[in-house]
């Protein structure tokens, strides 16, 4: 499971990430001290969100109440009734059969089971060998598409030395273009925009064209937020995808669905219907810096086989991390 940026992304043959990857910030403006402070804050946030230890009281005693406590913990984490029932039944069975003794063994096995669900068959790594690699962000309104794109562009540049162009294909929401422009500036990359109300497909097309022309490594397309129940808007996504494919064969290479960690069971419907409109390659689980555990991502991975690839842990550039299934599993049942 990727923990580092270099684990998550497959670079073109023979290329190594730049020597400064993960190192000091180069751009002017912000001093070294401030950068390290941010990094520290960011890491501690990540730890809080993901590295947490398993709930100590969960397996204090092993009896009927244990399974209820476990059920409660998973339900409260938004894992959902059916996935919860499956996991608890399996653990209970294994405990009965005598293979698992004591709290430590049980919690180790539980994390293993949960992480196992999160690890899907589908590839977790994002292949950056196509040039340019086209990434498209889709998702329900307000889930964090635009912010994720800003952070991703910054990391691709910083950690992997990629050149990135953004395409502002959310031509619908008021000031969506200005918002992405703000991020392009922060991340230090170029952006292709259209007028408000312009055809999103043509903006995406133009962004990919520009990416090819300039030999950019990655083009990331922002799309307008939409509810998965709005058929015409789902059709529009399919169309945007098709238009991108006309400019560059096999593009978009990676379609990422943002899912807000506070989302409940509806998240599964979102993933199902979005992936019907455009093949979704991975989930970005955002807003994990709050108290929500994002358990719906487990149900999405388990039932639809779509892996989580990235997590959002805040609103700053740095606050995006590769997903780690073990950390996630532990955090799900952390207090």
């Amino acid at each position, binding site marked *: 499971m990727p923990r580092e940026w270099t684990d998550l992304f497959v670079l073109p043959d023979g290329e190594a990430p730049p020597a400064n990857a993960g190192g000091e910030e180069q751009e002017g403006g912000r001093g070294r001290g401030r950068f390290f402070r941010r990094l520290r804050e960011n890491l501690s946030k990540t730890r809080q969100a993901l590295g947490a230890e398993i709930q100590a009281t969960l397996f204090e005693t092993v009896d009927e109440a244990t399974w209820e406590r476990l059920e*409660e913990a998973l*339900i*409260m*984490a*938004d894992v*959902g*009734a059916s996935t919860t029932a499956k996991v608890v039944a399996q653990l209970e069975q294994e405990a009965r059969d005598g293979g698992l003794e004591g709290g430590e063994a049980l919690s180790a096995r539980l994390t293993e089971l949960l992480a196992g669900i999160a690890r899907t068959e589908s590839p977790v790594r994002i292949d950056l060998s196509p040039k340019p690699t086209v990434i498209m962000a889709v998702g*329900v*309104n*307000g*889930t*964090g598409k635009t912010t994720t794109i800003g952070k991703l562009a910054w990391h691709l540049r910083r950690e992997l030395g990629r050149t990135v162009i953004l395409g502002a294909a959310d031509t*619908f*929401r*008021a*000031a*969506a273009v*200005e*918002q992405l*422009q*703000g*991020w392009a500036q*922060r991340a230090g990359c170029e952006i292709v925009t259209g007028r408000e109300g312009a055809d999103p497909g043509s903006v995406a097309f133009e962004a990919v064209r520009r990416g090819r022309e300039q030999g950019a490594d990655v083009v990331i397309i922002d799309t307008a937020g939409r*509810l*998965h*129940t709005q*058929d015409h808007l789902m059709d529009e996504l399919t169309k945007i995808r098709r238009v991108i494919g006309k400019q560059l064969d096999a593009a978009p290479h990676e379609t990422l669905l943002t899912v*807000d960690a*506070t*989302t*409940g*069971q*509806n*998240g599964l*419907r*979102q993933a199902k219907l979005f992936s019907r409109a455009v093949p979704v390659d991975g989930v970005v689980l955002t*807003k994990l*810096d*709050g*108290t*929500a*555990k994002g*358990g*719906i991502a487990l149900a999405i991975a388990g039932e639809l086989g779509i892996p989580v690839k990235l997590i959002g842990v805040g*609103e700053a550039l740095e606050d995006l991390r590769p997903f780690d299934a073990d950390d996630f599993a532990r955090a799900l049942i952390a207090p």
Partner: protein
Amino acid sequence: MFDALSEKLQATLSDVRARGTLTEADINAAMREIRLALLEADVNFRVVKRFTSTVKERALGEEVIGQLNPGQQVVKIVAEELTTLMGGESERAEFASRPPTVILMAGLQGSGKTTATAKLARFLKAEHGSSVALAACDVYRPAAVDQLVKVGGQVGAEVYEQGTDRDPVDIARWALDRAKMDGKDVLIVDTSGRLHVDEALMAELVKIRDATKPTTTLLVVDAMTGQDAVNVAEQFAQAVAFDGVVMSKLDGDARGGAALSVKAVTGKPILFASTGEKLDQFERFHPDRMSQRILGMGDVMSFIERAESQIDADEAQALERKLRRNEFTLDDFLGQMKTMRRMGPLTSLLGMIPGFQDQQLKNLKVDESDLDRLEAIILSMTPEERRRPELIKGSRRLRIARGSGTTVQAVNQLVKQFSQMQKMMKQMTKGKMPDMAALMRGGR
């Protein structure tokens, strides 16, 4: 999935009927189903636990009586208890005795505050004729101010903004002074999204509240929120003691159990429902309908009631006579359409019919804006034209198209559709009320 609970309960309790009373084992089986249904709807685990124990207590004593089978009976108890918990009547937001009324908007990131702010402004203008100003206090999210300026402009509310370099507390204070000076009735303060656990930002929100002394503080909650809704609501309640809730994104297919959780843990009413990206898709919240939505039982009762109160019996008879004699005119059509619309948005109305949810509703796609267009077209016709649509040709067609802001094609289509309808009506032998929805669909 929607009527699954009723069905499951009836199956679970099918053999009870003969016995006449519900035993504890029956009830436990039923409670398992209810518990699952509520959890699937995202009602908080602890709220569900409390709820099922209340229902259980009530159901245990109950006799199986009358027309209802035991399954239905339990459903009825559940529905009643749910309504009690959710609150029955819709409540209203308060106005200050001396203007401006200040409304403070708060919530998590991405919950829909900015859109709700503009929608609320539009709503207050339309309902109360208020003059509304908006204060742009989200200085953190890139382009949030631009967004508010744009949507504010669209609903005709003045936006007080000072860019993103000033402290949001100062902006709020300044905006309030300006609202007073400008003699505004209402000032709505849009704030940045913040996590309930972000101490610094929560403290800032308290400062904004103290600086503006809002008449009403509203928490905006995404209808898709899961178990965490209680944490969010509790923390915001503790920090700013909000008065009511706006549920956003209710136009999706989320069951919206978060509404119940929030109400249960804070006791605060849900005041408004935000139901789309268009700025007029905003309405008063109806708790009774919400409880039905959460459990997925079509809101049969309120559908029947509303239909009864809106369609006057005499009117219905007169209509029937007209239909039989083929005297149904475009005026009658307009009247019918208005009646339907008084009963609520068409799709939400249809959604109340049990077994009519989800798939069918999606296929139906009755667009409210289509109805707006039809209404505008008919209203642009002369009374004579409404009685005899066959008159509508050439320059008349153009005049009507211009008058209604539509196109000649749209006018043509309506006239054609209407004549098809008349034909269909002639064929109707039963003389019953026409299925308006089906007719409108037929012409599309």
